[in-house]
């Protein structure tokens, strides 16, 4: 559980905005059936409404979206999201807006959601277990971002 003034979703919002081409490439924009569209909406909702959780948000994630996304972009966005994570451990809330965006990226990357125990370190281990190559790249990107920011 985190507070609104602790989250900075501006960069993530821009990244998601660039990823979503608003129908330019997808011949038919599926809107809220698309993981990127949903994640982008969560980010812009946080920026406009200054909320940190969206009740029932988890239940609204379009997890049947099977489109193939650019792996590099997904990993990059996931690393950004992890950077905003506050390691809230026991106070972790599935409907936390950061968790919602992270879960969208997981479905896009791994085809499923990963368990999140309120700690980035534990999470990186889970990602590694789920897909060694993606997990290693994610860890490297995350650590690199942490070093430079």
């Amino acid at each position, binding site marked *: 559980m985190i507070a609104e003034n602790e989250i900075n979703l501006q960069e993530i919002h821009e990244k998601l905005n660039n990823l979503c081409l608003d129908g330019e490439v997808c011949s038919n924009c599926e809107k809220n059936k698309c993981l990127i569209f949903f994640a982008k909406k969560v980010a812009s909702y946080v920026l406009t409404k200054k909320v940190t959780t969206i*009740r029932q948000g988890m239940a609204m994630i379009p997890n049947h979206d099977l489109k193939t996304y650019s792996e590099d972009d997904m990993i990059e966005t996931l690393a950004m999201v992890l950077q905003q994570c506050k390691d809230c451990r026991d106070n972790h809330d599935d409907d936390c807006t950061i968790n919602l965006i992270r879960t969208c990226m997981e479905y896009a990357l791994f085809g499923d959601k990963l368990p999140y125990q309120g700690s980035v370190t534990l999470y990186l281990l889970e990602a590694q277990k789920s897909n060694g190559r993606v997990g290693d790249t994610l860890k490297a990107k995350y650590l690199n971002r942490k070093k430079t920011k």
Partner: protein
Amino acid sequence: MGKAIFKQRNGVLGVGIVTPCGFITPEQLCGLGKLLPEVGALGSKLTTRQTMVVLIPEEAFDRFVAGIRNLGLDVGVFGDVVRNVKGCPGNGELCHRSLGNVFELAVEIQQQYMNQPTPHDFKISVAGCHRGCTDPHCADFGVIATGPKTVEVFLGGRGGSRRPQHGQKAYVNIPKESIFVVLDHVLDTYRKLAEDHERLCNTIGRVGLDPFIIQAEKLPGTVEEDEFADFLNS
């Protein structure tokens, strides 16, 4: 109903001072700094319930009470009543973690409900997030903010006891403004259903949680997830 005045083993009085959920202004603190030596106070102790107990000789009691009232403070309450409210500093200006402005809410609850008679002592705690710095799970009526406009309510917690227990989650993500309707209902039901001097957790243990619940659609106010669904589809 009683006042928070406790005779100590050594004969002095411990007098509990109540403030708006533990908030004391610099002027009040300076005033207490002058008043305590004037009345021969032996010392003071901050309590877990956000009050301050001052140890004074019995004969100085009237002077002491007049002095604290001059500072805008008062003697706290004790016994089978709604006690002073424990409120965390969760608001837009203080704690970074707060999800809603609960400090103001806690002060308002205290102003409206403190000292109302109840079958047993009735403790209220309000927290701005799930970290729960005011121990809302250990209160008879625990409130936790879940967003700027929403809270959840736990009923029947009991901290200091041989058999401590956490409250049960009774209201999930309800509009903040509905808290007064919920509290009125819980207090009314408790007064009707409790046996003599029965603590709320025991009443709930006997009759269940249901009589204490108002259905969500009958509560005033709206919650925000509907707004997100609209936003998503816009």
